[in-house]
């Protein structure tokens, strides 16, 4: 380069060179023969050759790849004397053959003092990197645009929330530069209002909350810290709303600060929270008002909380339960009873257990009900049922007592037929005995076979014994455990019982038993009592009827897991007023006074989880009494 300056032929280049010495721009000068006259270091680096290697050599020799492209340009500049500016060239060089470079080139004519074009000055600017960064910028711009669109998409769809960006320039003031569409659901204002009038939002904040909000915001801007603040807004329509503003603050150029974030309408959340607090308060109030012990346990059987009504109803003070396992605080037999219940509730079910507990020598009966309570917790409500069990027991006893009394009374009603029933075998016994005696003493015309007579006597005696046994079971007062009963069999037993009564009253009994009757679980004698009572009522109702019309039908059937037993008479039927009050106590529909019996029937059937009712027959002749009993559960 200094050689060219020394030659003094191209002073302009030397000037340029001094100007651009440190600038990464390639410079060169060629003469009219397109031979390099001068080259700066930068261009020599582009071309991959030392500076000295250029002098006196042609373009074609130095940059053969580009020669076809650039020679015409140089010739045009030499011919026309006009510069060609901002020519973009693509290609690779010897120095860097695998990279396609981009250059921006300016070609200007070099003139002598007479103004003749003697060469061409060239400025070459390698823009390869800049171009890459322009592409990256484009990509980044596109990505930014996408991100903004994404924010728009998200922001516009947020329920009860809005996104925002606020610019705080260095010299004070601020503007919303972007908001998502959902501003109305948070501030009651349109996006346009907020963008146009930056103070619109702050004006909405209720007076009591505004200073605190503004202070907090100023502090966040000053310290560039995250802002998180909840305040109340008064919407243009006058309604009051809670909102929570949460934003990040970051500095940008020029000392400005951008605050970006989200504003959420928390009115619903706060109301829900208040409702939750209220419901918890209510729960506590209910629990404290319950006449029960309430325990909260985890699913392993550990006590989490205990609410006794009074601590003396507990085995130990409440605080000694908490954190302990059932196995640690309950007697072993009780723990063994309760643990399966816990497991059942832990599995999503509910459970109930009845058990006695002795505290200070006083044994009381408890009933525990357990239900799932939220996730992994069990609520156990334990009730002292001693009194109600006692009352229940007393009522049961009274019911059994009354049933017994009515049963005995009912037997009194049919004394005549019972005597008749017993008199038959007795007559056979007495008569056969007399025949035998006279046969043995020769006091007869034709002696009979005494052996055969004695056999008859034994048979009749057995029969009398059966009748007595049957009667005796009727006088049983004690409660016996329910048995699995075939109601057809019970009907046949009652038929035997009624055998003489039917004959004396001249009533025909027709049995219509369902052929495959499932068993029921019941007290045999009590069900016999109900049937006998209904049958006697039916017979009584037909008393005035001609003998031929006196037909009593007892039928059994199965309807929806219930066995139905119907006792149908052909009597006078029931008046409408009677139908309603039939099973009320001490109503007698007939003179002989078995009325109390229906009340007993009702209590017996109810105690067996059954139902009882009466209807008049459709054909205007008589009534039908029906009782039902649930089919017994399958035997395991």
């Amino acid at each position, binding site marked *: 380069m200094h050689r060219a300056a020394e030659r003094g032929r191209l002073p302009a280049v030397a000037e340029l060179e001094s100007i651009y010495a440190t600038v990464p721009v390639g410079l060169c000068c060629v003469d009219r023969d397109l031979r390099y006259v001068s080259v700066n270091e930068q261009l020599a680096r582009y071309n991959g050759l030392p500076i000295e290697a250029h002098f006196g050599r042609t373009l074609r020799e130095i940059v053969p790849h580009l020669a076809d492209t650039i020679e015409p340009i140089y010739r045009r500049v030499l011919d026309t004397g006009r510069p060609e500016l901002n020519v973009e060239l693509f290609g690779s060089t010897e120095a860097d053959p695998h990279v396609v470079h981009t250059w921006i080139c300016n070609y200007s004519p070099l003139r002598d003092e007479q103004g003749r074009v003697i060469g061409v000055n060239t400025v070459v600017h390698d823009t390869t990197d800049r171009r890459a960064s322009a592409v990256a910028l484009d990509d980044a711009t596109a990505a930014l645009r996408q991100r903004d669109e994404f924010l728009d998409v998200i922001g516009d769809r947020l329920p009860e929330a809005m996104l925002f960006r606020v610019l705080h320039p260095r010299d004070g003031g601020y503007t919303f530069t972007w908001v998502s569409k959902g501003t109305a659901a948070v501030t009651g204002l349109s996006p346009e209002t907020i963008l146009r009038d930056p103070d619109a939002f702050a004006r909405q904040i209720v007076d009591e909350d505004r200073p605190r909000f503004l202070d907090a915001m100023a502090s966040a801007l000053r310290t560039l810290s995250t802002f998180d603040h909840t305040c109340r807004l008064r919407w243009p329509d006058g309604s009051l709303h809670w909102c929570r503003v949460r934003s990040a603050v970051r500095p940008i150029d020029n000392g400005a600060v951008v605050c970006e974030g989200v504003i959420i309408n928390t009115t619903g959340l706060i109301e829900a929270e208040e409702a939750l607090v209220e419901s918890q308060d209510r729960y506590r109030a209910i629990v404290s008002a319950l006449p029960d012990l309430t325990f909260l346990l985890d699913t392993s059987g550990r006590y989490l909380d205990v609410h006794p009504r009074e601590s003396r109803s507990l085995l130990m003070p409440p605080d000694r339960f908490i954190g302990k396992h059932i196995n640690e605080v309950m007697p072993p037999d009780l723990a063994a009873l309760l643990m399966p219940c816990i497991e059942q509730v832990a599995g999503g079910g509910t459970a109930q257990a009845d058990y006695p507990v002795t505290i200070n020598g006083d044994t009381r009966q408890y009933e525990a009900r357990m239900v799932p309570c939220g996730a992994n917790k069990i609520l156990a409500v334990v009730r002292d049922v001693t009194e109600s069990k006692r009352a229940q027991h007393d009522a049961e006893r009274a019911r059994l007592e009354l049933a017994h009394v009515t049963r005995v009374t009912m037997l009194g009603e049919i004394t005549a037929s019972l005597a008749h029933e017993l*008199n038959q075998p007795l*007559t056979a016994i007495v008569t056969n005995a007399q025949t035998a005696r006279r046969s043995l003493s020769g006091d007869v015309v034709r002696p009979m076979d005494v052996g055969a007579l004695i056999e008859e006597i034994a048979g009749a005696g057995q029969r009398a014994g059966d009748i007595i046994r049957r009667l005796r079971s009727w006088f049983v007062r004690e409660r016996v455990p329910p048995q699995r009963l075939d109601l057809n069999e019970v009907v046949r037993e009652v038929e035997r019982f009624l055998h003489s009564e039917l004959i004396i009253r001249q009533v025909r009994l027709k049995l219509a038993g369902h052929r495959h009757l499932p068993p029921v679980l019941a007290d045999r004698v009590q069900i016999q009592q109900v049937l006998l009572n209904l049958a006697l009522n039916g017979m009584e109702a037909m008393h005035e009827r001609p003998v031929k019309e006196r037909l009593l039908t007892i039928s059994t059937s199965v309807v929806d897991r219930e066995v139905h037993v119907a006792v149908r008479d052909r009597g006078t039927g029931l008046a409408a007023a009677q139908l309603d009050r039939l099973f009320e106590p001490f109503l007698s529909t007939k003179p002989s006074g078995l009325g109390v019996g229906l009340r007993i029937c009702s209590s017996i059937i109810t105690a067996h989880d059954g139902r009882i009712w009466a209807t008049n027959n459709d054909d205007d002749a008589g009534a039908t009494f029906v009782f039902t009993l649930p089919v017994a559960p399958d035997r395991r």
Partner: protein
Amino acid sequence: MTGHVVCVIDDDVSVLKAVSRLLTALGYTVRSFRSAQQFLDRSTQDDAELGCLVLDVHMPGMSGLELQEELARTDRDLPIVFVTGAGDATLRQRAFANGAVDFLEKPFTDAALERAVSHALSCRAERFA
């Protein structure tokens, strides 16, 4: 010999057999029937052998008293000894009003039955005479 057969009618088989055996032992010719209807079905109006009835009051279907009324309605004049397992004054009065010879309550003695049947047969003999 006319009018010597004793007809025993009772729905209770053991009683029917016992009474029939006793009367047979005592020398009577006995026919047994399990119901009033069976008697009506198996005896004929002009059967001169029939002497009297030993008739149970309470039987399913036609009762003893109804049979008595039926026989009266058809002019069959057979003396009747009623036996009953359930004494009832009204029925007793009704039976006698309709011409019963006797009305025995179960269980009865052999002597009472023998006396009643003997009396009934003599009544029958008188009516034939």
